């Protein structure tokens, strides 16, 4: 009952003209970011954070805007997967497998509608799950002290990338690099400047928004310069979408796939370090195991598009559970959302639910609402987005660059931050070339100070006894999960990565 009351309060927060408008804008932009190959949820949210910050939006409104973008991108990713066989963002890869074959059979419209419905279904299930599960997790989180929190942060880094990452050295390197960036500046506990090279600009530390926008948005420009010739060769043709409404029979046939995909996706999303890509992967492979009786998968089976789309949307919602209730993000986009909350001086976690219930419940209410907007945008109005797909990146990238500059300049008004942003753009490009993941760097830069503060608080409590970190039962459980989460991928990771690579190869053959 309590939950229902909170939800009603949430709706009263969400249903102001300003917040409804923001949700509408967010859903629209999110779908665009998702649909355009090269821009995904993380870039989209990254570019918009500095702007929503400079605009002086309050925490609830910015959260509504940015999570609408996040959910919207999950919807939008499928459009280019289905129409041009290029995933609009990482999680939409699995949708190409059966989505593009459906287009080749002239059933593009049907595939888009069906995936729109399953995206909606997955996202609604996940939002309900978030509403039920997050408050429960908060109750556990209230028992956490600094030692447990420190362990939790270590867990977040150790499990990053989930089962698909088998090169742990690179993940650790990326994490420590990010954490090291966070140690620059005046030490919060003792007030001495640290690692600042005597440069006054570094005394305040490096704003993690600069790191985020540099790595996610500016590096994209460099990647594009490198690949622009190949880009020019692939000609995009305007696809005419005919039938929009699938038959009731098809909907009934795919319904079980949506349910399975949503549940699997949601739980994959909650897991530390998983995120939406894993959600859609698990949903597709499981659905294929269950339903591929006549060998129709990969040739345009409706269930093969419904399951992964329900899966990735549900996982996106699931990933919000640990981010909001523990303050520990599991994926790139949720890390960026966390950064947004921290810029607003709000630390996610149990205290968020107690001190700022309007933010949490307003957000949940807005997510329900956003899903209905997205359903409308993505089914009757989907043609509008198929046009946007034709916008060539050579026009898009300069716009992305300029908006990144506007956002970062808006925060501080200093050229120095812009130079840093360009530097992180180049660094991000280099790391991407070397196959080193950027998400741990970003997460390190965001969480570094919190992690160090918790460690030092724990040490102050125990008067410098390092074993204190392993004393409570809760802490031991977290360390145990950390070790499992770290070791398991070393055993199973290769197999799963190979499978994903296989899917990628098969796709490029088509």
């Amino acid at each position: 009952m309590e939950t229902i009351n909170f939800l009603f309060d949430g709706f009263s927060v969400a249903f102001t003209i300003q917040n409804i408008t923001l949700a509408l804008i967010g859903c629209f932009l999110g779908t665009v970011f998702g649909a355009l190959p090269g821009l995904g949820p993380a870039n989209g949210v990254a570019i918009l954070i500095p702007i929503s910050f400079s605009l002086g939006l309050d925490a609830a409104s910015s959260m509504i805007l940015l999570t609408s973008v996040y959910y919207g991108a999950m919807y939008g990713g499928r459009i280019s997967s289905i129409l041009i066989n290029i995933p609009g963002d990482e999680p939409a890869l699995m949708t190409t497998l059966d989505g593009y074959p459906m287009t080749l059979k002239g059933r593009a419209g049907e595939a888009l509608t069906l995936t729109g419905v399953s995206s909606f279904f997955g996202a609604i299930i996940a939002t309900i799950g978030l509403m039920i599960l997050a408050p429960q997790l908060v109750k556990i989180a209230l028992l956490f002290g600094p030692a447990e929190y420190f362990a939790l942060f270590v867990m977040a880094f150790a499990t990053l990338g989930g089962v698909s990452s088998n090169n742990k050295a690179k993940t650790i390197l990326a994490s420590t690099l990010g954490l090291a960036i966070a140690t620059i500046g005046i030490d919060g506990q003792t007030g001495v400047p640290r690692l600042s090279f005597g440069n006054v600009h570094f005394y305040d530390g490096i704003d993690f928004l600069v790191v985020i926008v540099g790595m996610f948005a500016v590096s994209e420009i460099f990647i594009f310069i490198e690949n622009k010739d190949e880009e020019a060769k692939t000609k995009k043709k305007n696809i005419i979408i005919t039938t929009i409404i699938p038959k009731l029979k098809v909907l009934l046939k795919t319904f079980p796939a949506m349910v399975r995909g949503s549940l699997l996706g949601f739980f994959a999303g909650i897991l530390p370090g998983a995120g939406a890509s894993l959600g859609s992967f698990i949903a597709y492979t499981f659905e294929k195991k269950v339903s591929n009786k006549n060998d129709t998968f990969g040739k345009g089976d409706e269930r093969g598009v419904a399951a992964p789309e329900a899966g990735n949307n549900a996982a996106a919602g699931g990933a919000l559970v640990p981010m909001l209730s523990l303050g520990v993000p599991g994926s790139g986009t949720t890390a960026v959302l966390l950064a947004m909350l921290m810029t607003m001086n709000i630390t996610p976690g149990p205290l968020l639910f107690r001190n700022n219930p309007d933010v949490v419940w307003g957000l949940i209410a807005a997510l329900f609402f956003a899903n209905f907007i997205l359903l409308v945008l993505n089914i009757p109005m989907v043609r509008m987005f198929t046009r946007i797909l034709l916008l060539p990146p050579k026009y898009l990238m300069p716009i992305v660059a300029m908006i990144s500059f506007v956002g970062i300049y808006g925060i501080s008004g200093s050229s120095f931050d812009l130079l840093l942003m360009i530097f992180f753009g180049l660094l991000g490009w280099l790391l991407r070339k070397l196959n080193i993941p950027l998400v741990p760097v970003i997460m390190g830069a965001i969480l570094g100070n919190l992690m160090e503060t918790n460690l030092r608080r724990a040490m102050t409590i125990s008067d410098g006894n390092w074993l204190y970190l392993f004393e409570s039962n809760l802490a031991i459980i977290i360390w145990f999960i950390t070790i499992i989460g770290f070791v398991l991928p070393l055993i199973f990771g290769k197999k799963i990565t190979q499978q994903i690579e296989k899917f990628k190869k098969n796709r490029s053959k088509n």
Partner: protein
Amino acid sequence: MSERSFGIISFIIACGYVYIASLTELSFISDPVGPKKFPYILGFFWGISSLFIFFQPEFKPKWPSLYKFLEIIFVTIILVAYAYALPVVGFVISTIIATFVLSWRLGVEPIKALIFGIAVSFSIYFLFHNILGLSLAKGLFGF
């Protein structure tokens, strides 16, 4: 090969990081850990993982051709110049030039790129300054 060199460079940077962290002057207020140990721990794991990459390279990065590489440097210079020009020349003029050069380098024909630059600059100025009220770089001329 490039992975190996990355491993060794990263290892050297990690050592440098630990060294600079060790130079931190302590203040009279202090906690049991102090400001140096967390960087030490990070530096340790950073160094170890760099060595791992050095000894077990598994990935061959595809590097761009020299021409592409120069182009990336050129665009970087443009962006840096833009960052410096913003507070001096103001948003509108510097954005027109930066967008023009960027889109031209990305493959738009020069005249179209110039029109595009003007369009982008004015629409961003209108949208962010006039409608949303964001403070953009003013420069000497006030826009």
